[in-house]
């Protein structure tokens, strides 16, 4: 599910910054002195998650003409497109600030998998994935993300995320 083209836009950053409750002008106001220092608003530390807006295969977005597992008048009963995996950890490494106007792409790499006994019984299956966010034209690394997801046993499903 690599993203071929992730245009980083000021309005998208504004909406993201509002959502996380951080209205620092360096994210929200291109005309602020804070943003001017970088040549535009910069992205908050977790913004690259929003690249999923540009993933054509993103399973957790309703698509026109396709059944969606969320409700309309009632629960649809459509097949759940979620994998059932929960987000266990998230790590970012920043190579430099990400500035509105840039266009990124992603390169994904599989990491390790491991198993852990759950405190409540059953086993937890962890899976690691790396995503390099690089500039679309030159491939310069900007952010490296490491996702860890967990497939919980039924016993712990209610405790996850």
């Amino acid at each position, binding site marked *: 599910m690599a993203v071929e083209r992730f245009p980083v836009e000021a309005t998208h950053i504004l909406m993201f910054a509002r959502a*996380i409750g951080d209205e620092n002008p360096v994210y929200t106001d291109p005309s602020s002195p804070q943003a001017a220092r970088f040549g535009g608003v*910069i992205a908050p530390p977790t913004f690259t998650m929003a*690249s999923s807006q540009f993933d054509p295969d993103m399973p957790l977005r309703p698509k026109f003409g396709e059944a969606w597992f*969320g409700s309309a008048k009632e629960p649809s009963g459509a097949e759940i497109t979620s994998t059932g995996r929960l987000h266990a950890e*998230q790590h*970012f490494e920043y190579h430099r600030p990400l500035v509105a106007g840039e266009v990124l792409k992603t390169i994904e790499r599989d990491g390790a998998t491991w198993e852990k006994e759950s405190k409540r019984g059953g086993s937890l299956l962890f899976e690691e994935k790396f995503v390099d966010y690089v500039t679309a034209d030159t491939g310069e690394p900007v952010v490296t993300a490491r996702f860890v997801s967990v497939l919980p046993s039924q016993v712990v499903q209610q405790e996850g995320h």
Partner: protein
Amino acid sequence: MQVGDTRTAVVLENISRTRLVMYAGASGDYNPLHTDEVYVTKAAGYPTVFAHGMLSMGATGKLLTDWVGDGRLKKYGVRFVNQVWPGDTLTATATVEAIREEEGQRLADFSVSTVNQDGKPVVTGTATALIDP
């Protein structure tokens, strides 16, 4: 900045379901577990919707960037340890664990923890930032 320095701030107060909708729309993670009360109660079996883990991580980042300055984070990572529900208030704390030099840069390593209104941790992690020489 010295080892042992610590800062605490409320990063999200009385989280509304509307905020979860805002985060879904901005991030592109439209999992109905976070926004669809009918689905989550009738089909998924949860008491109500709950926040995206990444909303808590994003909000916690504000404490760090307000402290170290814009564009100065080098690393930031967390584990999601408990769910966050509508009505929760999140308080983040960061503590300087080490200050070191690397490739001519001065770096601070932080521990980070965010708790809900009952003091229960929801996000725990670490961060590294560039600091002034």
